């Protein structure tokens, strides 16, 4: 089973537009949207949801006012400052349960927390597993792991040998959860100084977890000098630059129409993404 994840470090470099187009190009695969706190892939793939599942993860402290003697021990010991005036701040609570273990009157219990939903959907490009983390919730990494596990299960059931996932921005918990154990990471970058800075950090994460990476430069003609810098950097690091996509408003127009750009326009953008798929599918 090959699992290809698209990451970027910096947000807004074009991950979802590229993943949407790979969905249209690749045969016999399962799609996964691992950006569980701001998922957008569904806006291009127009899924029909077949299964809607609750995601229960982590716990929240709950104080029984009738039992609480306001001794203050929980407030003193909570390192997340999640208890104030004998009330739990559900956003600050990390669910560690320390307070429930030390309360002398057993006034604190831990209740299970529903932190989001995950979905199995049909699209005209094949199955899609996606999710929605609840607002201001934790455990995005665990929800990502669930999305990946379900995508793998479906691929096995249907005899597909490829999973393509749209990853989150950044380098933290949900990125690590999307990346670890994957077969290949496609890093989508842009020729801006911020894009280069962020690319180096996200490549650092892929080295750390031993996942091979390839780079795709989006809007490469926005700054040719920076594009060359990225190419030189990749050459030194032994990383293939698999595509150089030019800036084109067609990418945004395709988003507005809700279709992958390779199905909307047949210019240089589409040719480069087709070339990218050629490189990574062989």
């Amino acid at each position, binding site marked *: 089973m090959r699992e290809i994840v698209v990451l970027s*470090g910096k*947000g807004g470099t074009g991950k979802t537009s590229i993943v949407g187009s790979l969905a249209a190009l690749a045969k016999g695969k399962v799609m996964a949207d691992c950006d569980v706190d701001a998922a957008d892939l569904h806006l291009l793939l127009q899924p029909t949801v077949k299964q809607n599942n609750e995601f229960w993860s982590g716990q929240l402290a709950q104080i029984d006012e009738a039992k609480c003697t306001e001794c203050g021990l929980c407030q003193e010991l909570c390192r997340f400052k999640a208890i104030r005036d004998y009330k739990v701040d559900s956003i600050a609570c990390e669910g560690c349960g320390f307070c429930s273990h030390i309360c002398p009157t057993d006034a604190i219990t831990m209740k299970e927390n529903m932190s989001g939903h995950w979905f199995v959907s049909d699209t005209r490009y094949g199955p899609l597993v996606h999710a929605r983390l609840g607002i201001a919730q934790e455990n995005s990494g665990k929800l990502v792991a669930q999305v990946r596990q379900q995508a793998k299960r479906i691929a096995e059931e249907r005899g597909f040998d490829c999973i393509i996932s749209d990853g989150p921005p*950044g380098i933290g918990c949900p990125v690590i959860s999307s990346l670890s154990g994957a077969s290949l990471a496609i890093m989508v970058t842009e020729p801006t100084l911020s894009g280069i800075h962020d690319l180096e950090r996200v490549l650092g994460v892929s080295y750390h977890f031993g996942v091979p990476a390839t780079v795709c430069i989006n*809007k490469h003609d926005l700054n040719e000098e920076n594009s060359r810098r990225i190419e030189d950097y990749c050459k030194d690091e032994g990383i293939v630059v698999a595509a150089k996509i030019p800036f084109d408003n067609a990418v945004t127009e395709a988003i507005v129409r809700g279709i992958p750009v390779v199905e909307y326009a047949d210019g240089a953008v589409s040719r480069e993404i087709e070339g990218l798929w050629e490189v990574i599918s062989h």
Partner: protein
Amino acid sequence: MIISIASGKGGTGKTLVATSLTLALKDKYRVRLLDGDVEEPNDHVFLKPDISGNQPVFIPIPKIDKAMCNHCGKCAEVCAYNAIAVLGEHVLTFPELCHGCGACSYLCSEKAIYEERRQTGVVEWGNADIITFFQGRLTVGEAMAPPVIRQLKKHTDSDGIAIIDSPPGTSCPVVEAIKGSDFCLLVTEPTPFGLNDLVLAVETVRQLGIDCGVVLNRAGVGDNKVEEYCRSENIPILLTIPLDTEIARLYSRGITLVESKPEWKEKFMGLFEKIKETVDARDRSLKR
């Protein structure tokens, strides 16, 4: 006053807005910029501060004193993150899973657990002209951004103006960055992606009880659904920045909008005045 800059979707222009707003205010107000996108901090690329100091960010992790441990298994039982396992006479710890809550060491009846510090990032500071600058940096390979953001925010200045650049998304790092703000600016773009993620960001700031307004970036491409949404939800669009490849090219070179195009200084000052009116009006109504 604390103004945070957030977005839901990444790459909509948070850094552009945070740096230009800071520069527009610097001659008139005492202003500091805190880059809270600790996974991918970029404000330094534009402000080019002289970094003069730093403080490592540690989280406490458990260490087992084998001589004292009686292998009772209490620590493993109370750990909500499965960061300790007791197997026969062996105690295994998994530091990357530990949140540093301290339950295991406190509850160990044999006092066999002590805490050591593990570095997960750094907070750095310095000056860019007259602006005081702070940024957090999560160590590459580390998962948890919130402890770095918490330590960064200790440097918020309550007398002057603090501008906090937030990470994208809607989950715990964003909440950590924006909570406690007087106002949150949400930067978006007029596309279905921008709208989808703006709606999520609005839900997040509302849950935290923070007033918000929108900066519409790359206006002119896409559709008008963001404006329709803002009208129906009564969210003010406080500034509109057009789609302009010249702005994008300057950005690519690490040059801020107000430095390259001085006419934008007035517009960002105007943006601040509108935020200030909202915050002052709220403060007045709270005092009554």
